[in-house]
């Protein structure tokens, strides 16, 4: 199964956005998770938090309107929506650690069948270690959603029995959206809730590193 098969990144982000209830305060990780903001269903209001100190993150500014003092956690220019608030770092992480942010969406290198997450270090000895806010987010936010490709470019599973890379958190992930499937982490293990169009369960199982229970709830529109 090639990495291109199944859903596009935008489609994965749209699926995740559909699962976030109206009125939720949401933190989006750097990279693919940022796409979620483009796919909020009509009629739903989400408030986006960025851990460097802003609630009410708006879309990127038009070119030429960037403000170097107004950036997100990925250090990209953003805008602040009406009703936004700025705050310092300890308050920002009190929002995270204190359980005030309802959902975060993160990328991952590996997720285990028990919801362990590895997303901060490749474990290579020569790499410069850097962690940022990932450990705080997974420890404090109630529902941790992961957006990632189902397998690495070399075809190795990213959903695994046990993470081999350094952990970000233990038993923290709720649901994973890959290009092939939507998978829940449950006390019974990994449960496939939905498969990308034209993707067979056996093909998904073949590139999943842990048993995958068929938990599809029938065809959805």
């Amino acid at each position, binding site marked *: 199964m090639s990495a291109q098969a199944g859903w596009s990144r935008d489609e994965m982000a749209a699926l995740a956005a559909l699962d976030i209830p109206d009125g939720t305060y949401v933190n989006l990780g750097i990279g693919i998770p940022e796409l979620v903001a483009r796919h909020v269903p009509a009629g739903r209001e989400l408030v986006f938090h960025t851990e*460097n100190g802003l609630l009410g993150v708006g879309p990127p500014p038009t070119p030429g309107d960037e403000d170097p003092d107004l950036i997100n956690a990925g*250090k990209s220019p953003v805008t602040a929506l009406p009703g936004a608030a700025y705050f310092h770092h*300890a308050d920002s992480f*009190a929002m995270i650690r204190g359980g005030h942010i309802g959902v975060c969406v993160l990328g991952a290198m590996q997720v285990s069948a028990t919801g362990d997450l590895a997303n901060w270090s490749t474990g290579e000895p020569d790499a410069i270690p850097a*962690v940022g806010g*990932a*450990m705080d987010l997974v*420890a*404090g936010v109630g529902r941790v959603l992961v957006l990632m490709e189902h397998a690495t470019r070399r075809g190795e599973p990213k959903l695994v029995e046990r993470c081999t890379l350094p*952990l970000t958190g233990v038993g923290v992930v709720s649901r994973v959206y890959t290009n092939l499937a939507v998978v829940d982490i449950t006390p019974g293990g990994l449960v496939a809730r939905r498969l990308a169009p034209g993707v067979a369960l056996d093909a998904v199982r073949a590139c999943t590193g842990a048993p995958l229970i068929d938990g599809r709830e029938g065809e959805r529109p």
Partner: protein
Amino acid sequence: MIDKRCSSPHEAVAPVHDGATVMIGGFGSAGSPVELIHALIDRGPRGLTVISNNAGCGRVGLAALIEAGRVERVVCSFPRSADAEVFASAYRAGRVALDLVPQGTLAERIRAGGAGVPAFYTPVGAGTPLGHGKERRSFGGRECVLEHALTADFALVKAERADRYGNLVYRKTARNFGPIMCMASRVAIVQARRIVEPGEIDPEAVVTPGVFVQRVVEVRGPADESDLVREGRRYP
């Protein structure tokens, strides 16, 4: 009379001594007190421990301080970026030690330091490599690690407006670590785009009350670190 104003960035950073622990505000370039850091490079103290979220970009600001060989240890959460070659090479050559701290734990350790709380338990990092070797205790069935407060001899912070009492207002997401670093340092040194008369900052809008600030200096047109990096500038 209380007057915390200094006439120049060089005068403002003059008390920073060899071996000092210095907190440096900023998240990436937003809030990076470039003029104070450059004045510190000119003044020449060595053997510094720097507490900051990142470890500098390009060859200006904190990266230039590291390149000048003044920094012995960096305590930070994210020293890696596309333009962070100065730190990377100093770290790989063993010239700079690194204490890696989760970002929120870094902020809370600084806040605790400023609030007189010597240590606290947090679930962040438990069961991960960054929790190894720390005192552990379970609360409500949840494993936590003990984290110690961080304090510093000095803080270098960028603000938008200040008055002679040291009351501060910041600008947008450049606020980031400024308020807590002022709290946690013995001498908080602040560069502000404008120093205004007492009363001009609405007391309801003061973000950092002056009690947390010891020295302020006006820097009217502060450089933006990301501009300097983009232009390939280096300091000195």
